[in-house]
Structure formats: C-alpha cells, structure tokens
C-alpha cells in the first residue's frame, strides 16, 4: 500500500510540474504580446533621436527586424535552452547575468523578511487567540490590520527617518549582504505586510481550533493548558497558515521593489521598473517568467506540504 501511495504522489508531482509548461507559455505569450503592442521601442529613449541607419543596424543586430511571430518563436527557443538573450540597454550584459546578480539579493532579503514575518505573525496571532476579546487581543488585531493598511515604502521611509537620520543606528540605504546592519530596515519593512496577514490567519484558525471537540477532550483529560496548546491546538491551527505563507512568500519576492527602490537595494524588483520604462524586452520577459515560475512552484510546494501535515487530505 505504501508503494502505491508514493507512486501516486510521484505521478502527481510530475503532472503538476508538467502543468508548469503551459502556464509559463501562457505567461510568456501574454507578456510578449503586451510589450510588443506598446508603442515605442527600446532605442527611442534618449534625448536625441537615433539616426535611421543606426536604428536599422540595432534592429538587425538584436533580431527586431524579423516578423513578430519569428521573434516569438526564436526567443521561446532560446529560453527553452536557458538563454534569456542580451539586455537591450546594458549592451555588454545578458539577462541571465542581470538576473544572476539581482535575484539572489531579492531572494535573501525576502527570506529574512519572511522569517521575521513567520515568527512575529504566528506569535501575535496565537497571543491574540489565547487572550480572545481582551485588551491584548484588540491590540494585536489592531497592529495586524495597521500592517495590512500601510504600504512598505512608507514604513521604510519612517524607519529611515527614525533609526537612520535621527538616531544614526543604521545606514540610510544600501546593501551589504546578510551579515550587515543594512538589511535591518528593508527586511523589517518588507516583513510587516506578511506578518500582519499571517497574524490574522493564525488568530482566526487558532480560535476555530480552540473550540474544537478534541481540544475540549484534551482539557478534560486533565492535560495542562500549556500541553493542550502546544501539542494539540497549534499543530492543527497552523494548517491554513501554511497555505497562506506560500502565497505570501511569493508576494514578498514579487513585491519587494518598493522597498528596494527606496532603500537602494540592488535587487530584481528595482531593475524591473527600469527595464519597463526603457522597453528592455528580454529583461521584462525574463523577470516575468522567473517570478511566474517562483509563484507556481510556491503553490506546488504548498499543495504538496498540505497532505503531509493533514493526513485526512488524500491526493
């Protein structure tokens, strides 16, 4: 029986991974059509217009003179071999170089922020549920809803004003990897929104669990409240939180560019805004495909984790 379960799960994972292909293809097609339908090209951005002959050469060099369907197929073929093409605006670098430089920065920042968000969010949510309808509950709920209502760029600005400009505790911007104090402000600012979302979900699900029959049974067996909470309640209460954290983590990765822009963090998000205004087609396509894959894989991981945590769900 164990065998059939594992092969079942293996086939399921395989099917889900194969589903990635049409999803990414659809994302590619949509993005390709939209950016090519947008008037203006990558070479018309400078102050003075590019001479026609140079324009022609540039288009030839980057394959922009071929028919659109040809460009569509060619780029798709290159991407399937892992080649995302050259950047249009940074002539000496390829998209893979740029993503290789910037994505790890966004990923590190996102993971630190997510770690903060998990600890703070689950902590606040649990406290709120255990002290249901007390001042502490209202306070944590208010903090959570404030976190959902304040954009990250405002938080960064306020933290810079307070911690960097007034008390000179940390620098006012930049990036030096995980071990520098420069990560503090962007990570905290980025963590606030996911922390608030996780706190709200944890509180709601914890309240549900606390009124469940098995918790009453555990209490009436004479278990100490501490064991009831840690051994019975939290484990079950965290189920929906796992689902949400996957989606929230994808949000953190794809939404980091406000924080990156304000705090001058050289991540992928900051680059994306630049590539949009400069019509750097390969960079736009590469970024959207990469982040689309991140979101899909996060969803897949969540779906795979779920039956492991909750044996009632069969695949």
């Amino acid at each position: 029986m164990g065998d059939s379960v594992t092969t079942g799960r293996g086939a399921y994972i395989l099917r889900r991974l194969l589903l990635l292909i049409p999803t990414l293809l659809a994302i590619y097609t949509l993005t390709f059509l939209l950016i090519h339908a947008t008037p203006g090209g990558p070479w018309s951005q400078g102050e003075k217009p590019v001479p026609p002959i140079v324009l022609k050469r540039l288009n030839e060099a980057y394959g922009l003179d071929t028919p659109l369907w040809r460009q569509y197929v060619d780029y798709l073929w290159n991407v399937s071999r892992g080649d995302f093409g050259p950047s249009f605006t940074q002539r000496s670098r390829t998209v893979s170089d740029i993503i290789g430089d910037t994505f790890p920065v966004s990923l590190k920042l996102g993971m630190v922020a997510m770690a903060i968000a998990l600890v703070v969010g689950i902590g606040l949510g649990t406290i709120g549920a255990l002290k249901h309808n007390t001042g502490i509950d209202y306070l944590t709920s208010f903090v959570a809803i404030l976190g959902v209502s304040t954009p990250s760029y405002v938080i960064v600005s306020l933290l810079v004003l307070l911690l960097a400009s007034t008390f000179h505790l940390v620098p006012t911007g930049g990036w030096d990897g995980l071990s520098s104090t420069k990560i503090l402000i962007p990570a905290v600012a980025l963590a606030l929104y996911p922390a608030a979302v996780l706190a709200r979900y944890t509180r709601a699900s914890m309240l549900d669990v606390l009124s469940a029959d098995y918790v009453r049974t555990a209490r009436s067996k004479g278990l100490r409240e501490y064991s009831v909470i840690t051994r019975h309640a939290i484990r079950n209460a965290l189920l929906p939180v796992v689902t949400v954290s996957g989606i929230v983590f994808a949000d953190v990765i794809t939404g980091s560019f406000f924080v990156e822009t304000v705090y001058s963090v050289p991540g992928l998000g900051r680059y994306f805004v630049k590539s949009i205004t400069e019509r750097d087609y390969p960079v736009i396509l590469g970024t959207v495909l990469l982040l689309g894959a991140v979101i899909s894989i996060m969803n897949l991981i969540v779906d795979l984790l779920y039956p492991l945590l909750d044996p009632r769900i069969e695949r």
Partner: protein
Amino acid sequence: MASRNAPVITAVAADPRVAVALPSSRIEGFWGGAFRRLRRNRLAFASAIFIVAIALAAILVPMLASTTYADQDYDVVKQGPSRSHIMGTDQLGRDIFIRLIFGARISLTVGIVVQLVITVVGVPIGMLAGYAGGKTDTAIMRLVDVLYALPSLLFVIIIMTFLRGTFDSKPGGIWGVIADLDSKTGGLVGVYVGLGLISWLTVARIVRANTMSLKQKEFVEAARGLGSGHRRIMSRHLLPNTIAAIVVATTLGIPSAILTEAGISFLGLGVIPPMPSWGLMISEAIPNLRAHPYMLIFPAAALSLTVLAFNFLGDGLRDALDPWMKR
C-alpha cells in the same frame, strides 16, 4: 429600519433570509438586519462615517477652495504647516492640504471604479463556470489558475505601460475617445482598466463556489421544476443569493485597489503629474524626508487611515451579512 427598543431580536434572528417576525410584529428583511448588525459594530460604523466624511471633503472642498492642486506659489516653497497652509506646502509651493483632497478623489474613485470593473467582469464569469460546470468550468478555471500565477503587480505595470503608450500615440476611433478621457482625468482611465483587468479573479472564484453550492439547493430545483430557464434561475435565484458575498468581496477589494494605485503612482507609472495621488505625493516627499517630514506624514496618514477604514468596514460587513459565523 430596526427599532431600538427590540433587544429580543438577537435571540430570534436565526435565518435572516427568512423574514423574522419581531415582537412588535414588524418584519425585518435581510438587509435591514445586516444594517442593524453593522451599526452595532462600533469600529465598522465609525469607519463608514470616516469614509463618508472623506468623500464629502473630496467632493466639496475643491468646489469651495480658491486654489487647486497645480497652483504654485514660489514664495512658500517647502514650508511647514501654518495658518494659510494648514498642512504646509511641497517642493513646488503647492498647498499640501488641497493636493491631499484631490488625492482623496483619486483614491476613492479608484477603489470604487475598479470594483465595478471587477464585478462586471468577474461575476458573470464565475457564475457561468459554477452554473455550467463540466468542460466550460474546467476551461474557465484553467484560465483563472494561469492568471493567478502571474506576478500581478508586474503585470499591472505592463498593462499600464501598454495603455499609456497607446493613449500617447494619439489613436483614432473609440481608442481616441478613451485616450482623451484618460488625459483629461490625469491618467486615471489607465489605472482603472489596468487594475480591473488583473483583479477579477478572486471575485470570480467566490461567485463560482457560491453558485456551485446554491444550484444543488431545493429552491433552485423547485424553480427548474416550475419551468424556469437558465437565465431566470441565474438572475432571479442564484444572483440575489450571492449578492452578500459579492458585497463583502468588493468592499475588501477596495483597500487593495487603493494601495495598488498608490504604489503604481509612487513608482511614477500611475497618475500623470501635476495630478496628485497619495502615492505620488509620498514619493515626492522622500527626497525631502529629513528636513520636511510633514510632506510625508500627511499623505501617508491619509492613505493608511482610508485603507484602514475600508478594511474595518469590510470586516464589519462580512460579520453583518454572515450571521451564521460566530465571529
């Protein structure tokens, strides 16, 4: 409206879709009950009043004020709050209070119009998928799944750039009319369409799930037995029973639309200056943050408080419209 002197009502209100007979032999409908429950939620009711106040200010103040959002006074550049400029002036000598009020117009209309777009697109799609089932449902939900995998903020930006570029290239025909409207409203049409096109997914999912469970119910069966066609069943039986869910979903969608507009304008891709948006005002304040923090504080507070109010109101509406939920 429910009368104040009927406290017994809490015990009787079991199923508000069935009109409840009050001791005073008054009939309370579903929406009446919901309003009464909403009014008892002080936070949600205060939020509703706050939103109405902001909306009134956004409508009335520009009519009464002598200056407007683009008026510059170079004698008072970057001055803190004073008698003549209660929230101070910005880097171009424009009155921050006036710009804040015009920003409220933008935020509120974005919140509402985007929800209208979402309702018009998402509700029929979700209902069709849920009611038809089978292959239609599978096809629609596949599409929704693919769109869910899109990095939505990036996509809003791509759609907005496309719309902005198309509008700027002076198109003819119907596009020309829309482009004209867009430039007259300071780029708002692009914001509405871009946000609306990307955010109908959640509403479609909610309506689909609701429709799927409702179409099994006896009253739908009865309507079918009486000879109602698909159209009539959908418009007379399924839609009215889904309205509550739609109202809650759209109210909770307003704050996220407001935040997304602010974010896009913050990046300089939303409204076209000199039209103010709270996001744009915040981004203009950041270079002056140290010396002139008030330039940031006012628009940031306005944005947070408005979003906060819509969140409270949405939560309150959910509780009021869903009396079966205990919390």
